[in-house]
């Protein structure tokens, strides 16, 4: 732990100059808390995976050093031993003005946990750069830092600056070239304040909502669909304490950023800094691994390119972007194409063709092999006649002669592919068996797994002895490894984030689907057709209704969720307080008012009453009474004022007319019941009666029904006054 000792004696700021200025610090998360790189990451942490033959973390650290960061805290969780060992043995442990300290944790399951832990350590003293260990960049931080500090001086609430970059997602797949989902951001063009961040694009939802207060406060807002989040954040110290205050923040974007944007009580603000000419990207999935590798080979990330970064081993850059280490043995008849990297000590046989690929160190490649767009790591043996297209092949893999990898294949460490065996497209092959369950929350699952089973004994070289049952020989004669099955539902999406380019037929299919969608929209939304002619539509107000429907949809979903929550609460006997919490959470996530909650809860209660068995109206009444009595607290916690109570009455009325006509006869009784239980105040009922007074006869049915009751209420009121 040499690195840690170093941090114990930081450059003590005794001279007055240093007192004024804190050294720039950075937090590097050496765990992505995601499972996208499985099965490889079961054996080696993601940050140590080679990117053009150099571990990813080296790119990140090298950039941090060049950007003027003086102290880096590397947070390791999964395979932390490997990361620490690597850092200790690497150049990073002995830099004079660049201190790398590791912070180890075994039970963090998210970036939120990591930051909470770092907060407890109390090591961050000022602004810091928050970055994950899989980021490649060559941007200059000075400008962004300057902006951040100036903003912070003027407005103490400006606590974070996010780096963004132009990158337009493909109109067909709706994902960026890095394979990430499209991102919608709203930014104030003058102040660069981030106003809205929507990354989990719901394909079904065709609209983006901007809160009206945002529009009122910002005369001009630019909505971006063409920006990419670089996941480089400049944060003020408050960010860490915010994570501690909000212990439910897990994900940096989904929880933290969105949480801040929604929360208007504290008024914290996030700003963006757009970079134009420099590079910044994060390796989030196999597609971005492919894209960024190519960018590195094409030197967009200069000076962080293999020939400069690797330093000691001499790598020559030849024309057409071919990188060749010094002692490579290549047959004369072999054809090394453009944009290819060949690592040290690798031997390549006759008539072998390699293009757009990375071949690591110490590999042996036979004759008549075709390699195209592949990432072959170290010490891989490929026998004669193999064909590899768009695959990742990890350390120590052996491909027997004539084996074929179809596009998108991932071969994890030490897999052996049998003779003539064809590995089907998008397969993931590992010596380790696939974990049997896929938790709905993949982040949690991954962390559990790695901190539990994945932890012991994994060395940098993947020195493991997994037990191989017979099924391990799925890979043809002499093959070793399991082909992981693809989970239901994910299957179709496999191509989205694979190393292989998106097949044309998929694109065409998507395009046609999109067409159909639009067709749908044409019918729903009265869209102009191509020629400029109009399609006649049945409903002239359709366009107006369309909008309402959509917002109505939101409410319907919300109502369903509330109903489900309520039913669960009933069935599992959840405490009222907990149910209130859950409904509140739903309310926030659907952006509903508490009026809507009251309506939805009441609806669920009444629905339950109708659905529970009953033979007569009186039994139904009893059902309803029981439920209302039991859950009145839940309902009441959303009835803060009279409007909400009126909403309940209206909702009830609506139900009686539509979904639960059985209640129609019981309307006055239930109303009375609600009054007795003090769920509804008499003011609310009277106000409702007043409102309805002016309505059509049809609308007044229930008012008439409950006339007596209202009369009684009014009299009671008068009596009260008399007294």
């Amino acid at each position, binding site marked *: 732990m040499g690195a840690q000792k170093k941090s114990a004696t930081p450059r003590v700021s005794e001279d007055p100059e240093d007192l004024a200025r804190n050294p720039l610090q950075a937090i590097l998360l050496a765990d992505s808390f995601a499972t996208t790189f499985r099965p490889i990451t079961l054996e080696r942490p993601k940050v140590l995976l080679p990117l053009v033959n150099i571990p990813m973390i080296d790119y990140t650290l090298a950039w941090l050093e060049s950007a003027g960061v003086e102290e880096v805290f590397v947070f390791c969780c999964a395979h932390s031993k490997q990361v620490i060992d690597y850092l200790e043995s690497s150049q990073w442990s002995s830099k004079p003005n660049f201190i790398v300290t590791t912070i180890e944790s075994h039970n963090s399951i998210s970036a939120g946990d990591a930051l909470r832990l770092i907060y407890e350590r109390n090591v961050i003293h000022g602004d810091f750069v928050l970055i994950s260990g899989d980021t490649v960049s060559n941007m200059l931080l000075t400008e962004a830092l300057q902006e951040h500090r100036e903003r912070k001086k003027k407005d103490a609430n400006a606590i974070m600056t996010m780096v963004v970059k132009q990158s337009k997602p493909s109109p067909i797949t709706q994902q960026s070239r890095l394979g990430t989902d499209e991102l919608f951001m709203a930014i104030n063009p003058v102040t660069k304040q981030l106003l809205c961040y929507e990354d989990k694009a719901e394909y079904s939802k065709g*609209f983006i909502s901007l809160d009206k207060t945002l529009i009122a406060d910002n005369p001009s807002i630019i909505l971006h669909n063409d920006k990419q989040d670089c996941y480089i954040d400049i944060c003020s110290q408050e960010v860490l304490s915010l994570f501690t205050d909000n212990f439910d923040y897990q994900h940096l974007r989904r929880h933290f950023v969105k949480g801040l944007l929604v929360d208007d009580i504290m008024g914290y603000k996030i700003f963006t800094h757009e970079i134009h000419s420099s590079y910044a990207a994060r390796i989030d999935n196999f597609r971005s691994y492919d894209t960024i590798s*190519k960018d590195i080979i*094409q030197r967009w990330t200069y000076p962080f390119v293999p020939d400069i970064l690797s330093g000691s081993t001499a790598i020559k850059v030849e024309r057409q972007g071919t990188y060749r280490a010094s002692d490579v043995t290549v047959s004369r008849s072999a054809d090394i194409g453009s944009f290819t990297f060949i690592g040290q000590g690798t031997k390549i046989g006759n008539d072998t063709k390699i293009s757009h690929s990375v071949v690591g160190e110490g590999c042996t490649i036979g004759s008549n092999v075709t390699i195209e767009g592949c990432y072959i790591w170290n010490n891989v043996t490929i026998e004669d006649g193999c064909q590899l297209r768009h695959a990742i092949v990890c350390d120590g893999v052996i491909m027997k002669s004539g084996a074929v990898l179809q596009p998108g294949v991932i071969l994890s460490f030490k897999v052996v592919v049998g003779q003539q065996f064809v590995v089907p497209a998008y397969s993931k092959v590992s010596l380790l068996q696939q974990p049997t369950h896929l938790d709905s929350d993949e982040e949690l699952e991954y962390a559990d797994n790695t901190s539990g089973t994945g932890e012991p004994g994994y060395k940098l070289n993947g020195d493991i002895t997994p037990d191989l049952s017979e099924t391990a020989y799925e890979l043809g004669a002499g093959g070793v490894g399991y082909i992981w099955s693809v989970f239901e539902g994910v299957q179709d999406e496999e191509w989205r984030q694979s190393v292989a*380019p998106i097949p044309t037929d998929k694109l065409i299919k998507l395009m046609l689907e999109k*067409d159909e969608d*639009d067709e749908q929209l044409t019918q729903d939304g009265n869209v102009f057709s191509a020629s400029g002619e109009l399609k006649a539509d049945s409903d002239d107000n359709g366009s107006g209704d369309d909008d309402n429907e959509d917002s109505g949809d939101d409410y319907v979903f919300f109502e369903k969720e509330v109903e489900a929550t309520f039913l669960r609460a009933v069935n599992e006997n959840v405490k009222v307080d907990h149910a209130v919490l859950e409904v509140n959470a739903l309310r926030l996530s659907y952006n509903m008012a508490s009026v809507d909650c009251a309506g939805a809860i009441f609806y669920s209660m009444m629905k339950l009453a109708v659905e529970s068995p009953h033979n007569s109206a009186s039994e139904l009444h009893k059902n309803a009474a029981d439920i209302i009595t039991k859950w009145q607290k839940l309902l009441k916690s959303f009835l803060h004022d009279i409007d909400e109570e009126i909403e309940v009455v209206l909702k009830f009325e609506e139900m009686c007319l539509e979904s639960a006509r059985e209640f129609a006869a019981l309307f006055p009784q239930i109303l009375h019941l609600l009054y007795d239980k003090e769920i509804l105040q008499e003011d609310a009922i009277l106000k409702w009666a007043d409102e309805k007074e002016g309505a059509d006869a049809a609308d007044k049915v229930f008012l008439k029904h409950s006339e007596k009751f209202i009369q009684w209420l009014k009299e009671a009121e008068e009596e009260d006054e008399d007294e």
Partner: protein
Amino acid sequence: MDFQVVVLAGGSSKNLTPLVSKELPKPLLPVANRPVLTYVLHQLEQSNLKDLIVVVEGEDAALVVGAWISGTFIDRLHVEIAAVPEDIGTAGAIREISHHLTTKDILVVSGDLVSDVPPGAVAATHRRHDAAVTATLCSIPVSGPLESGSSVGKDKAKKLGRYNIIGLDPGKQFLLHIATGAEIEKDARLPKRILRAVGQMEIRSDLMDAHMYAFKRSVLQEVLELKDAFQSLKEDVLPYLVRSQLKSEALSNRTPQGEENGNEKVTSLNNQVFVSRILANASIPSFHDRSSETPDGSAPTRKTHKCCAYIASSSSYCVRLNSIQAFMDINRDVTGEADHLLSGTDPNNNIGPSPKLGTKTTVGPHSMLGEGSEVGDKCQVKRSVIGRHCRIGSHVKVVNSVVMNHVTIGDGCIIQGSVVCSNVQLQDRVVLKDCQVGAGFVVTAGSEYKAESLARKEK
């Protein structure tokens, strides 16, 4: 230019009672002693748009307006007057006169627009993009009486009304989204589809629709024909066109083409472009490949129709006379900071018997006295417009007010922030504050009114 101009002059306007009357329909309300319609017609003449249809609500009003136009613009503009029933909305009015429209493009201007935005520039923008519709957008005027400018600066910035929520492309040439009316008060909902096509959209809430549109005639007529529920150009037709501008980037030619034959070629060409783009995408796009992936400005809309925006420069003046407040504001501005609008509108105006001023009477800046008016001794006129042939007694104060023609004002009257219509008689020592006095009304001596609307009972 092959442009027909439709001037929607309106007629009686409920917002403007008691200012308008049978004799004085809205288009003839005086702004700096000229009918408000003068300003639009003058701008059109300046832009060499001389083929006009002036649409007036109500037969009677049409006659009055027609008489005035033929008297003033007879040899300068080619004007047809069309009378339409009242309360059919702007879209309804166009529908009524639809058969008169013949040219390829139509410019629709609201007759109550007082603006220095050149209509020719709007028409040119429209033509340049071959758009289906081009809307003129202008900055929201600072409304309200003068005092708002002084102290409560910050409050006012917040109160600055929002009239539209407008989405523009990065080049500020295309109108991608527009919300009007009640929609503004809700959360804005922006279609992702168009955002995906364009990449970024600027949402502006500090612009408003200035009621000057250029339409492609065929599109306008089709919309009006098929959507017979559409009442308003601003609230129905324009949002509809904007919403539907981008149907699909990959639409094949399965629908028969409209009368624009050029479209067919463009569409098929676009399909080719599109297919090649897909193929280009199939291989990993290289870095900085924006140009191939991002359709150039016009591409996203080329398939269907384009909705363009002409954004008037922030220094230009653009206000509609659609409320009494606006009437006061415009009168104030046209005699004051926007006085360039006056130049050339009516060169004869200031000739004729010049107004007579009594001794020690001061006429402050931003004021105007019509020909033949007489002002007595020791009067003060500040930031006010006084019409023709008015007789004003002595010791009268007129501040921030508009006084129309043939008004008699007795001695010692104080008039502040008020509108006094033609032929009104104010007897001695009347005090008016923030009032409107309808035509021909007589205010008895010594009475005081505050924030009231005075008018004769209709016979």
